[in-house]
């Protein structure tokens, strides 16, 4: 995955000649290989850790991984759209909260399909607010987002009291039951919600929009070098607005998904920090759709596993060891190796092995924070390699640069 969106997505190399090194450079080739490799590692670990866990590779776990990754994926893509346009959006959490309420309200009133759309709009409304503050008024992005995160739960609580309390089964803190979007039967994964499929369809769609359309090019320009766009007649503000509103809409959709697919009800506080994890997912994915999807699946996997099979998480420690070992090896083979770069993963891997051998299970609270720890580990090892949009977080004012 390089930043050079236009070049390395080119079609496979010259026909007739199979060049592995060349193939490896192609995204379509690398991804399945990664996936296959991952599955082999999981299978090996499961075999070593036997009989601790059957969940590492089960169909139920695969389904859970998909389900739990969707809100993170949508939030991550949302964060990506905003930051690609230059606006940092840690208000995703608040926008997702709006999405849960509006999604539930819409679903109760008009059914899950229209309801989901309303949830999306609710999130977009939050995005619009963030855009007004940051783009039009030049408020610091973090500050505006914090204000939105504080405001959103208050608004939804008030709205729930005003509206849901009037329904049977509804109250200030919850909605009546909400029907699901509907699902389709797939092999291995069992029933997969249509909304899950739609969410994952956003991954190639987001890539296409950002790297293959006029809109996407201009939006990315707004996040990389707004003055450059401005000097060529691009209305930077408009694209920043678009990015943040799309961001809010995706966060709202994530909220709707939690309501209609994950639980079937709106409950106050249900987003549970997913907006923040979504942001971590985006960073994990280096501000790119494919990477974000990978990150979301990883966190979704960890989430699902900790709920379904606590011992599985224990076995998963071994997967972490494998990954760290590979990392250390790669660093050791690279010309730029330093003691820290090689030593740190090696030391951590060793510590995990010791822990694995000393305890039969990981403490239950460890499960709850696996995604958080994972995020920190990823950041620690790759912060320098990540390539955020240059202008992200900066307040750009037309004519002042």
């Amino acid at each position, binding site marked *: 995955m390089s930043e050079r969106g236009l070049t390395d997505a080119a079609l496979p190399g010259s026909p007739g000649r199979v060049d592995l090194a060349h193939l490896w450079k192609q995204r379509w080739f690398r991804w399945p290989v990664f996936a296959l490799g991952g599955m082999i590692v999981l299978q090996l670990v499961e075999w070593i850790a036997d009989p601790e866990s059957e969940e590492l590779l089960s169909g139920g776990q695969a389904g859970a991984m998909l389900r739990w990754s969707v809100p993170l994926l949508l939030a991550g893509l949302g964060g990506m759209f905003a930051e690609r346009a230059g606006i940092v959006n*840690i208000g995703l959490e608040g926008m997702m909260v709006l999405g849960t309420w509006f999604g539930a309200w819409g679903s109760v009133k008009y059914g899950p399909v229209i309801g989901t759309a309303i949830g999306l709009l609710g999130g977009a409304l939050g995005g619009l*607010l963030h855009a007004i*503050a940051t783009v039009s*008024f*030049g*408020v*610091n992005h*973090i*500050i*505006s987002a*914090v*204000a*939105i*995160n*504080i*405001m*959103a*739960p*208050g*608004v939804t*609580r*008030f709205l729930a*009291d*005003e509206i849901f309390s009037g329904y049977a089964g509804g109250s*200030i803190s919850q909605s009546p039951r909400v029907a699901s979007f509907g699902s389709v039967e797939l092999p291995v994964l069992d029933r997969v919600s249509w909304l899950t499929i739609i969410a994952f369809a956003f991954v190639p769609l987001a890539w296409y929009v950002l790297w293959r359309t006029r809109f996407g090019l201009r939006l990315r320009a707004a996040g990389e070098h707004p003055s450059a766009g401005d000097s060529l007649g691009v209305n930077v503000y408009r694209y920043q607005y678009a990015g943040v509103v799309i961001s809010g809409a995706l966060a709202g959709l994530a909220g709707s998904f939690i309501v209609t697919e994950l639980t079937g009800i709106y409950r106050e506080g249900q987003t549970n*920090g997913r907006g*923040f994890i979504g*942001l*971590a997912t985006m*960073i994990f994915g280096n501000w790119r759709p494919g990477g974000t999807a990978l990150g979301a699946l990883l966190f979704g996997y960890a989430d699902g596993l900790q709920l379904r099979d606590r011992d599985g998480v224990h076995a998963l420690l071994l997967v972490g060891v494998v990954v760290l070992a590979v990392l250390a090896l790669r660093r050791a083979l690279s010309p730029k190796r330093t003691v820290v770069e090689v030593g740190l993963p090696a030391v951590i891997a060793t510590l995990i092995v010791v822990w694995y051998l000393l305890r039969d299970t990981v*403490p239950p*609270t*460890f499960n*709850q*924070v696996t995604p*958080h*720890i994972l*995020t*920190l580990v990823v*950041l*620690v*090892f790759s*912060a*320098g390699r990540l390539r955020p949009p240059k202008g992200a977080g900066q307040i750009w004012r037309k004519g002042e640069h």
Partner: protein
Amino acid sequence: MTAARRSRSELLLGFAAPVAAVLIALVVASIVLMISGSNPLDAWASMWEFGTRLETSVDAINRAVPLYIAGIAVALGFRMNLFNIGVEGQYILAALVATEVGTKIDLPGPLHVAVIVLVAMSVGAAWAAVPAILKVTRGVNEVIATIMLNAIGVSFVAAELLGRWDSAGQDTRTADIGESGHVPGINWLLEIFTRDVGKGRELYGFLFVAIAVGIGYHVLLTRTVFGYDLRASGANPSAAEASGVPSKRMILAAMIGSGAIAGLIGLPDILGELYHYGGDFSQGLGFLGIAVALLGRNHPGGIVAAALIFGYLDASSPILEVEGDAPREIVTIMKGVIIFAAVVAYAVTERSRRRRQVAAAADAVPTTSTEIGANP
């Protein structure tokens, strides 16, 4: 315009923004109330009547004390352009560990309290040091790191600690801190001026600590070389570095200082009222601290006002429910609108202030530059 006059008008502008924010919030809340079928005038009248009682004031101040400390903790980071979103995790962890230590020791009064305070500050500082170290050694963004550490701190570290403890009643929590570790109330302070505030209410003695923290913060930042270095580092890190301020050390100092202050946030409640850590301990003060710091513009005086506004809203809003005037949640909306309106108003006034200064500076300079350049 003379300097004095300009600074007075700037001061006025500085006040206008938060006042406007509160007014906007009132208007928005009134509209919402009218839409939802309540009479906003009744609601404000009973909040005003109730809020001006002495007892409510005590409640409001007691609420404002932790909010104030939280605001200062956040502001210290902000002054260096560090977003310590992790105040939340830092204070919870600190309160938990300090309370546990407090239950295990038995020392004469002030010493007992001092140990608890020190432990709390150290734990807060230590937890804040993690993102600081990650930032200076690995370049990890502190916003994301502190968000992650909040969850890790509360869910993992705290639960692992708490899991080993005895429980009391139906709650899972620490034992009580002994009598010597309590911070006595200071109702006598009120009694100097007025009647007894009545049974069941004690003005937190921790108020003095909050005041001291505020003064310390102000003196440190504006009167010491270290404070200058810190602000310089926040204003322009590379210029500060060239001036001899090691930016990494400043990041560590600001984060750790912020964490140490954050460690105090939970103590007014624990040492003044609860005496234990358990399910009835207030979480979320760290995030409110961000709001308070924003509203108070990182200025110790402004944060006092902001903490009191929030304290008053919290202390006087229950009357809405008791009297059945309006949904109590209106206050949450008001808080949100106040913060939002305030940050927008600040951005606008800041820009206009800048513009006026530039114009003033340009006034002082002749437009032709040829005669500049005489030897000094």
